[in-house]
C-alpha cells in the first residue's frame, strides 16, 4: 500500500510502500518517553521504497528493551517523530514509519501490540475515561 505524509510544519515529507499488516503498537518505555504518551504506532517500510524530502534530525537510542540500538528520526523544526531504523550508512533495509504522520492512517489499523509488559494499565480501559467530542478546558 502506498503511503505518504509530512511532519507538522511540513519540513519533512515522506512516502513509501507499506504492508498494513505490519502496523504495530509499541508499549516500550522508550516509546512512552519519546512520544510523551503511553505507546507509539509504526508501520514498516522497506528502505528501497522510501522517498523523503527534508533532512530529519537523528538520535541513536541505545537503551531499547530489545537491546538493539536504533536510529530515531524527528523533524528538527517542529519535533514531529518520523521513523526509527537500524544504525548504518546509506539506505537501511527497513524503516518503522510513525503512523500518526501518514495521510493513510485511517487505513493503518494496528494488527499487533508489543512490549505489553510496560503498557500503561489504563490503556485497555480507555473507553471508560470520560470523553468530549471537541475540547474541554483542562
Amino acid at each position, binding site marked *: 500500500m502506498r503511503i505518504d505524509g509530512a*511532519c*507538522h510544519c511540513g519540513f519533512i515529507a515522506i512516502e513509501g510502500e507499506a*504492508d498494513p*499488516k*505490519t502496523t*504495530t*503498537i509499541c508499549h516500550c518505555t522508550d516509546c*512512552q*518517553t*519519546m*512520544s*510523551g*504518551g503511553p*505507546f*507509539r504506532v*509504526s508501520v*514498516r517500510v522497506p528502505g528501497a521504497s522510501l522517498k523523503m524530502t527534508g533532512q530529519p*534530525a537523528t*538520535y541513536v*537510542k541505545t537503551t531499547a*528493551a*530489545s537491546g*538493539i540500538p536504533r536510529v*530515531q528520526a*524527528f523533524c*528538527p*523544526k*517542529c*519535533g*514531529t*517523530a518520523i521513523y526509527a531504523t*537500524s544504525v548504518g550508512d546509506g539506505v*537501511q533495509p527497513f524503516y518503522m514509519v*510513525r*503512523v*500518526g*504522520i501518514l495521510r493513510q*492512517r485511517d487505513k493503518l489499523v*494496528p*494488527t*499487533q*501490540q*508489543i*512490549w*505489553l*509488559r510496560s503498557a500503561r*494499565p*489504563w490503556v*485497555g480501559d*480507555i*473507553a471508560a*475515561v*470520560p*470523553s*468530549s*467530542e*471537541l*475540547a*474541554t478546558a*483542562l
Partner: protein
Amino acid sequence: MRVNGTCHCGAITIEGEVDPETATICHCTDCQTSTGSAFRVSIRAPGATLRMNGRPATYLKTTANSGNPRVQAFCPTCGSPIYSTSPGEHPRPSYTLRVGILRQRDQLVPKRQIWTRSARPWVAHIGDIPHSELSTVPVSEPRR
C-alpha cells in the same frame, strides 16, 4: 503532586507540581501528527512551580482545532516532547507536560479525553489487538 522527568537523552529535565485530576488524553490531529501515534497524554503544571534544566527547541503551532496558537517544546537532541504552553515570555501561567516523560506516570491515570471526534477508531478496542509481553517480529522476516 510533585512530578519530575527527563527527555530520553537527558538533555532536558523538568519538575513541577501537578493536579493528577488534570491528566488528559488528547485525540486531536495535531497530537497524532506530532507524536506519530494515536493520541497524547498531558498534565497541567502551573508555571510558578516549574523548574527546568536544559533548553528545549520550540515550535509555534497555529493550527490547533481550538484555534489557539500553542508553543510546542521538544528536546533538540533526542526529539522527546516536553510540554506545550501559551506564546509569550517565560514563565507562562501554565504548562501542559507530556506524561510519557514523567517518572510518576504510573500514578497519572487520564481523567478525561478530548477531541474524540478525531480519535482513531481502533483505540477503544485496543484490548482486542493481539499482543506480546515482550517484542515480536512484525512479519516473517527478521528484524534488523
